């Protein structure tokens, strides 16, 4: 499986109603290049799955989409990522409203060492989204409900979020993200630390969230990609090899590397 020089992405990386469009994105960690000229559209209200062998740059690319890479000193991003017509890498853009619009859920559940209520209320509080206590209560309840956690925690909203089980913690993190009411949600292997039952719950949740949000999800599991996404993008060694509808990728992949990956020849 050799590296392909200047690979032009196979399939359909672009779409008509793009929420986010990346153009010629390159990422360097110091001297080392991690992403090579990736161009990709993410459509409104679609779920796009990013797959590929580990270390191929899925997380790196995902973190470009809300400039989380800014927190890593040595990380340099070039190219253009346009959200609703504006380049988010424009020096004038402030990352705060950007990240409020493009939320993120991480691989390992990372609830803050606060109560469940305060975890969910964190975003609305810092952004001043609620005008009153009642307002805030409502946001918290709705977010927990949407995340499918309300029934389980409504009696212990004021106990620490870190006391929940792994799956519950991850749903709490999702609730925390949707409490800000973003437009796009980025998820980096949100189920990799969870058991199958918790995973099923999250997958169900993603399906529901699609109505309202645009979602990009990195996943290691091809079954998961097949279950939750409409389009799938395959990354290999920092390059975007192929993007197609999920059905097509898993039934008739265009590129041999994609085929090799989904048939389990490496990963």
């Amino acid at each position: 499986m050799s590296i392909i020089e200047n690979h032009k992405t196979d399939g359909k990386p672009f779409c008509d109603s793009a929420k986010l469009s990346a153009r010629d994105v390159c990422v360097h960690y110091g001297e080392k290049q991690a992403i090579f000229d990736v161009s990709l559209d993410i459509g409104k209200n679609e779920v796009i799955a990013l797959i590929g062998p580990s270390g191929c740059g899925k997380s790196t690319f995902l973190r470009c989409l809300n400039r989380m890479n800014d927190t890593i000193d040595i990380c340099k991003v070039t190219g253009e990522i346009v959200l609703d017509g504006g380049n988010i890498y424009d020096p004038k853009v402030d990352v705060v409203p950007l990240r409020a619009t493009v939320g993120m859920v991480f691989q390992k559940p990372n609830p803050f060492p606060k109560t469940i209520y305060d975890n969910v209320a964190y975003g609305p509080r810092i952004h001043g989204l609620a005008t009153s206590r009642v307002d805030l209560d409502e946001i918290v309840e709705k977010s927990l409900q949407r995340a499918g956690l309300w029934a389980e925690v409504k009696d212990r909203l004021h106990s620490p979020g870190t006391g929940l089980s792994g799956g519950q913690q991850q749903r709490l993190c999702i609730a925390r993200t949707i409490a800000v009411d973003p437009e796009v949600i980025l998820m980096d292997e949100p189920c990799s630390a969870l058991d199958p039952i918790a995973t099923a719950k999250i997958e169900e949740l993603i399906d529901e969230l699609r109505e309202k949000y645009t979602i990009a999800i990195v996943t290691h599991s091809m079954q998961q990609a097949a279950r939750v996404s409409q389009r799938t993008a395959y990354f290999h060694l920092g390059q975007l090899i192929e993007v197609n509808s999920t059905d097509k990728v898993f039934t008739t992949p265009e590129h041999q590397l994609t085929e090799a990956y989904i048939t389990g020849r490496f990963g």
Partner: protein
Amino acid sequence: MNYSTLLIAVLIALGGAYLLGRNRARTLASQGAKMHSLPTHYGALVALWTTLPPLLLLLLWAVFETRVVDMLLTLQLPESIRLAGEADVRLALSKVHNLAKDSSLMAESNLSGAAAHLVDLQARTSLLKGGVILALIFAGLGLTWRRIQPDMRARGEVESIVRKLLFLSSAIAVLTTLGILASVLFEAIMFFQKVSPIEFLFGTTWSPQVALRADQSGSSGSFGAIPLFTGTLLISAIAMFIAVPVGLMAAIYLSEYAASNVRQVAKPALEVLAGIPTVVYGFFAALTVAPLIRQWGETAGLDVSSESALAAGLVMGIMIIPFVSSLSDDVINAVPQSLRDGSYGLGATKSETVRQVVIPAALPGIVGAVMLAVSRAIGETMIVAMAAGLAANLTANPLDSVTTVTVQIVTLLVGDQEFDSPKTLAAFALGLVLFIVTLALNFVAIKIVQKYREQYD
């Protein structure tokens, strides 16, 4: 023979015994015997048995010589002195020692008999000591040397002795703690037989000056330590008021904001502040800061004492800044990056993340760090000894002069001490309080920090 001569003799014996033992093993081996261990092991074994017993004896001798000599000497004192009481005996003994040193004085004293006896005694013990030590050296050497046989397990024996020595070394730390406790406890108990603990802990007047003669007024002194405790707390509070915010903010800035080149300069610079001896801070506080504060106070129309609590507290605060900042830095760095990411991912600014996620997450560790800093402030001696006063005022006014527990310990123990006087013993009672309080603070703080670290490991 004095101690250094004997010590040198033992060291020479060490080398000699090693060579003798090794050579004997070599000789045996060359004669065709199959030795159990290497020749060096036999050498080491002989060396250990030759030097350890005399060293131990030398130590015991050093510990008990003065007491035994004094005991024997007491019997030689004139009856009148012996019956007069302990203090007089002690005085007489020290006179006898002086007489023995300078024989020109001896003729004129009623203690000359005892002094002559002492000279005699010293000569005899010195001879005895030398003889016993040399005997031990040769006994150890001879016995062990003869034990060297092909089937002797020298290596095992050497290793088990060395292991015991290693264990003893690490036990010294525990012995030190016990030693501190014992030294303050015994004298403190004697103090509490003269002054009630209630008066000591809750009394509000501190004037330990015992009168020289019994008929002078205030002959008993008064030992209410409350002004000392409040003085200590006042100065520590001022120090914490400076050190905690500045140290914490500096740690936050350096770990979350500063570029790496800034960090590389600023961190060692702050550490230099921690390496400066406290006596230097004391000098700075007493000669620069205190006059400055007094001057400012005067222009502002305030009445500032020249040994104000403020000056000592301020400078102590400066001294503790690097202590707080390096401990907080460790603690803040232990907060996992994933928590920061979670906050940034929701669109929080850096300061929001620090204030609402990092600090709360690090809080137990920071509390531990602050407790260690408080313990440090309470136990700090030189700055207060030089810049704070001796006046035991019960006040919360930082412009007044206050005194602290440590200052009083120093004052009571420096200079001529009369033993068994409540004044001297009071220092040990204060030491006991200081030791217990700081030990408790350290113990809890170290536990908290340890728990905190385990949480994120």
